[in-house]
């Protein structure tokens, strides 16, 4: 029984690491630009399809396809920001990005078809003294954590990262100090699109997907961001891991539907009890 629980815990943590990557991108656009990106789900789906295409047509190792999905979605995100999102904030941006979601999802169904695809590259699982660890899950989780930490380092140490954080603190002030806010916001939205795309690439290794993949994450990612505290970059990582584990534990107790609902119930509870999130500081 103990081994079973540890297996569930590891599996939940692995999924949580990927959730954290999705939420990280959302957190960035929300915290820095005050844009609630409803389209992050389709960025994730596009990432998954890039991996699938590269692997099935050109036989590229799926792990290397993240070097494709990151720049492609970075460019797409930057373009979307440059021409559309930049001009809106708050609730208008929610509607706008939902429009983008509808367009891209519909076009994806037309282009890719509605059938399920999967990238069967890593299969099987490791057995460590009765604790089973699924190979694709643990590899994907490792990359996801590395990617999250890399972003964290980028935000803390590089010049652009400092500029991004300055904008999230006070946009006007940052502009006064000579930060080119429009340019930095475009980069931010690019990263905010590329991070879910990498998560999507990793997810394609774990389970089958179709163009509706993004829908699952439409609200779940918000739950993670709210849980971790908006604009808090480590918070998103911890929030993601928490939701991953909570879902896995509830699902293991035999309640698949309730595990899906867990995220939404957490979002409401956290907003009511501790609106600044578990890692946030009260304003």
């Amino acid at each position, binding site marked *: 029984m103990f081994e079973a629980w540890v297996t569930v815990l590891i599996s939940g943590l692995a999924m949580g690491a990927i959730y954290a990557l999705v939420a990280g991108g959302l957190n960035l656009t929300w915290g820095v630009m005050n844009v609630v990106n409803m389209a992050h789900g389709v960025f994730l789906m596009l990432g998954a399809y890039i991996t699938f295409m590269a692997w099935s047509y050109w036989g590229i190792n799926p792990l290397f396809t993240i070097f494709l999905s990151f720049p492609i979605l970075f460019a797409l995100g930057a373009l979307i920001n440059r021409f*559309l999102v930049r001009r809106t904030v708050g609730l208008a941006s929610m509607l706008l990005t939902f429009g983008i979601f509808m367009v891209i999802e519909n076009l994806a169904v037309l282009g890719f078809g509605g059938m399920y695809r999967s990238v069967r590259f890593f299969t099987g699982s490791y057995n460590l003294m009765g604790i089973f660890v699924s190979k694709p899950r643990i590899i994907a989780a490792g990359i996801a954590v590395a990617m999250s930490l890399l972003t964290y380092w980028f935000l803390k140490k590089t010049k652009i990262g400092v500029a991004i954080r300055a904008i999230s603190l006070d946009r006007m002030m940052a502009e006064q100090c000579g930060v080119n806010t429009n340019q930095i916001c475009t980069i931010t939205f690019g990263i905010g699109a590329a991070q879910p795309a990498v998560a999507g690439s990793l997810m394609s290794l774990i389970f089958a997907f179709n163009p509706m993949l993004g829908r699952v994450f439409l609200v779940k990612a918000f739950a993670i961001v709210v849980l971790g505290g908006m604009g808090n970059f480590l918070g998103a990582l911890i929030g993601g891991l928490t939701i991953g584990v909570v879902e896995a534990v509830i699902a293991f107790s035999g309640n698949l539907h309730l595990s899906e609902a867990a995220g939404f119930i957490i979002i409401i509870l956290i907003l009511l009890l501790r609106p600044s999130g578990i890692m946030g500081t009260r304003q």
Partner: protein
Amino acid sequence: MIKDVARSLWALGWIGGGAIAAFVVLLLVAPSVASPYVVSLLMAMFMYIVVCSSWNIISGFTGYVSFGHVVFWGVGAYVTAVLVWKFNYPWPLAVMLGGVGSAFLAAIVSYPILKLTGIYFAISMLALAEAIKILTSHFRSVTGGGGGIYLPPMASLNILYLMMGFLALAVVLVCYSITHTKFGRSLLTIREDETAAESLGINITRRKIQALILSGLFPGIAGGIYVMNVCFINPATAFDISITVNIILMTTFGGIGTIIGPVLGPVAFTALSEFLWASFPFLHRAILGAILIAMVMGMPNGIMPFMVRFAQWVGIREFFSRRREASQ
């Protein structure tokens, strides 16, 4: 309050009264001259008028933009379906109880959820809708689970169509007359400045709760009528986020915070989406998305600025202007 409502209805005058009479006549005549397809289309339009006007009470008048209003519609539909399916209630009673059910849900969630503002309120409403969708799939014994509920056809299309039409009329009149009461003006004040409203002696918590309950009641009834017509409901249709987005899209197009906006929006969009559906069966969702993008970018205030100019010209500004307490 009743005096205010009576006075506001009296203030409709000849133009308003004539418009209502014309609407009622058209409503009664339509089924005997138009095909069932047109009647169904009109019914869908009336449904969106009901839901948009209700959304407008909490989001347009009070300023709390709800991103999960479909939850009230879905709960109303489910309450009606379950009462008819499990407990053999007569369907008109079940439809009314559907409205009671959704208003009850609004009452339960209102106190905690209305403490949040802006985007946080929007997202928690979204989460509420998603949570209820999943819980509906989960409690299989009550709700029939993810497979949904099938009902035998009980009421004829024409009767349901008339109910929906009169409900739409009633909701629009309610929206119109509450802006003439103390209650409605409190909501407008809350939208403009919550702190100022409170310092003027308005019990803002209570007013907001009342607004949310009122705005949850009508979609529930509309959902009940819808489910009696379609005879099928499942969680994916009942709590579909696209319906919420349609509501926001239509009302924004027509004009948020106006009386006539939530009527014009559905009329325009039902026609448009029907046309798109018929002409581009594979692309209509993408085209709707593109329209949504174009609208947010191009005309964030909808068609209202043009309409107001037209209305001023005709001289019936009352209906069109964005409600402000100062204009009363």
